[in-house]
């Protein structure tokens, strides 16, 4: 990673920039889907009980996870939050099948 990229990722800006915002937006959609996929997988009951709540809750969750990612000090921190959560949720979905 060159110095310039490192600067962008670690710099504490007075406001949140376009890259940070975009990461939050895309990250929020992916994370919300993963969280509700975990819910759908482990929720006891028939397919209606497993799937319908996920369809309804995901749009709300996108906003909440979006804010969580947006409220990060730096871009790198926002990326770490996103990547760690993604890995953990993916393990829950794929490994314990």
């Amino acid at each position, binding site marked *: 990673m060159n110095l310039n990229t490192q600067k962008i990722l670690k710099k504490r*800006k*007075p*406001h*949140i920039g376009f890259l940070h*915002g975009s990461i939050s937006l895309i990250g929020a959609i992916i994370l919300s*889907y993963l969280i*509700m*996929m*975990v819910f*759908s*997988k482990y*929720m006891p009951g*028939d*397919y*209606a*009980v*497993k*799937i*319908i709540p*996920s*369809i*309804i809750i*995901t*749009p*709300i969750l*996108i*906003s*909440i996870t*979006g*804010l969580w990612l*947006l*409220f990060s*000090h730096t871009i790198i921190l926002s990326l770490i939050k996103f990547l760690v959560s993604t890995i953990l949720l993916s393990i829950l*979905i794929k490994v314990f*099948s």
Partner: protein
Amino acid sequence: MILENKYIKSLKISHTYLGIFAIFFFYISTFFGTLTVFKPYIATWESPSKHFQVIDKSKINLDIMITKGLKELNNPTNNVTITYPSLTEKALGMRYGFSENVYINPHTNNVLPTNHESQLLSNFFNKMHYDINMSKVGQFLMGITSIVMIFLTISGIYLWLLNRKKRAVISNFWLRWHKDLSLLMLPYIIVFSLTGAVLGIMLSLSSPFAYSASNGIETNMSKIVRPIIFSNPVKIKSENVKATMLSYSRLYDIAKINYPILNISTISLFNWNDKNARIVFRGNLINNRILTSRTNRMNIVLNGETGEVVSKATLDNTHKVSHALSAFYFFHFITDEGILVRLIYLITGIIFAIGLVFGLFVWIEKKIKKENNSYFNIISKISTAFSIGIIPATAFTLCLYWLFPFNLENRDSWIIGGFYSMWSFTFCYSVYKKDSIDAAKDFFYLNAIFLISTVFLHGNTTNLFLWNSFEQSIWDIFYIDLFLLILGIGSAFFAIKMNKIKFLNKFKGY
């Protein structure tokens, strides 16, 4: 402290820019959604063949009407659906499978001549509401907008709570009203943004949940969920043995005796004239309309030959998710509600739309102060055309509907084309006029001309003027015409008085 300020600043920026994106789509959706609340009434008003009184249920002769309808449909014996006359659909409707509906006048028991009646207006308004007449792309955009609205709601509440904590006083006129109206309309916003997100985007993007729930076996949500929540009450095959059926009115009475709280809205026939004939009476429960709305209808199944009760769906033996979905959709569609609830939705829709526009004005005012260049502020012009220009464009559509003859070739295209042309004109006119308030004034004049013309054109085409519908007690048609006339006169009055309304001076220079 610095970080906290940074977050608040970012939240405000996100709220502003996502808000600008969402306002245009959600405003259109709210405007046409508010009109769609009256869809059943508009559908009757635009069908001249249905200009008759609502019938007293005790006077309905099911035997004659269903026999006539079946004959018109070439006597099908399976999958026949009959829509029972109600306040919102005055005629008895009948279809076979996915065939076109045949309508029967319950007063005369004759088949209605609905050849050229397509319910264009009510369907067009509905389409503008859920996909801005852009099919899948529009539906997807509306879905995204609804998700953005949820974000705006959460971030808006957060910002409001922060302001309350700081005891900050909001001096900006637009911001204060945007905040107050949005908070007042909070339940309305939550209901419509959440149902909009689910219907617009989430149902079609639900494959990952189906994949995960089925451990990678199935990705089609509908395939695995539908059989659970929309179970078919009739799963019986024909015996191919002829039998004499009980009369429809007798079967209706048996259903009412065995299920008195069922408000019957549709009747279905299966294996008719066969030993295994079934008749299904579906509807909502009189004492629980929320849990038995359009996605969770209760039913009673009778044997067509003997009238014996085969099965009965009650709230106790239907799926809990169906109850939840029913309640979820109830507040969006209000299918079984009367005029009072629909009028409340009209008022809340108008308040919410005003709240949205005020939100946009917070930004426009800020921009104009910063750049000091109001004439070329294109957003200001677009917002005038979007928020006010859409009103005469819609009135023009109503006017064209009654102006063009019903047998005109490509009639639908001419009318919808007229709507878009008028809407484009309002935008050009907003740009042409230096002051948006002057453009708005002319739009209200135009609106008045179109609405008043519509009432007279409707009377002229159907030979049912306002005074005729009053004399003949056709109240739904009378009230729609009266409403349009009052709206037209009110619009002209508002345009005349606009310059004298102090509040509107705030718009000067935009």
